[in-house]
């Protein structure tokens, strides 16, 4: 089954994007962490200054998923800045629905991302996701946490507010 198209996401896609975000979060055992809404995705992705960009993979109606979906894969990304090397691509989410894996959709999405002409792409993987880590390492990705000791830190909204009051 090579019958799919890759295209930029459109405002009407936000419902499917959110569905797939939740499916991916479930796979990562982090489903309860998703508080993003369709409204957020619409405002943040399709306004004057989008916070993110998105590619989606679409199959024809006759190839739809068991549950009747035709948007079956997505990649959410944005541009970041490394003061050592300049502009980078940050891949926030990358997902292909299970029943559509193995047909080259993932590779085609990555090819599209590589055409954004950034010299480097950064992303995060959970250490227990060994199949994904192997996939990326086989293609030359470096694990910066393991190899260079970089640890990701985060501070949430409540603690941010406390910080600004001090």
């Amino acid at each position, binding site marked *: 089954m090579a019958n799919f198209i890759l295209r930029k996401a459109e405002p009407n896609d936000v419902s499917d994007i959110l569905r797939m975000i939740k499916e991916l979060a479930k796979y990562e055992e982090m489903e309860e*962490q998703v508080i993003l809404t369709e409204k957020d995705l619409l405002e943040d992705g399709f306004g004057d200054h989008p*916070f993110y960009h998105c590619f989606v993979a679409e199959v024809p109606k006759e190839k739809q998923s068991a549950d009747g979906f035709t948007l079956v894969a997505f990649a959410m990304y944005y541009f970041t800045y490394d003061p050592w090397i300049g502009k980078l691509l940050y891949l926030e989410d990358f997902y292909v629905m299970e029943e559509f894996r193995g047909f080259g959709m993932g590779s085609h999405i990555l090819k599209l991302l590589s055409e954004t002409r950034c010299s480097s792409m950064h*992303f*995060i993987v959970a250490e227990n996701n060994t199949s994904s*880590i192997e996939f990326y390492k086989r293609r030359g990705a470096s694990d910066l946490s393991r190899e260079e000791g970089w640890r*990701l*830190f*985060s501070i*949430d909204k409540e603690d941010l507010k406390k910080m600004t009051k001090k």
Partner: protein
Amino acid sequence: MEFSIRAANLEDCKDIARMILELSEYEKLSDRVKVTQKDLEQDGFSKNPFFHGIVAEVPEQHRTADGHVKIGYSLYFYSYSSWKGRSVYMEDLYVMPEFRGKGIGKALMSKVAQLGLAAGCKQLDFTVLDWNKSSVDFYMSQGCADITADLGLHCMRCEGDAMERLAQP
């Protein structure tokens, strides 16, 4: 000690470039720095900037031996979490060694937090090297969580040839 925090402007790029190099030397990774003052000017101060900056400045009477009054900075940009939505990423936070311990780092980070909250951000993210104990301790005291330790999330990079290979079906 008196100091002020303000948004960076084009003229600050020379000092920011200097301090980026100083920070990379502190992190023992200075051979990685390829960005120039000109890159910073183009990438940070054009119509669609790739980053934003704030600088910490001291009055003339406290200038360094080399005559610098811009003695700290932070570079940040807006990012997106597919779990939470709008986020702010603090790429660099640096205060020159002789000006540490005076609350300047805290003030810079607080400013980034303020700007992030004003833009509707739900979280502030950044990375720290695991051996940088004084920084890790500072961040933990501000209520930060070590996501690599807590959730096992590893930062990955795919660059140059590796990125080309990733694009092969």
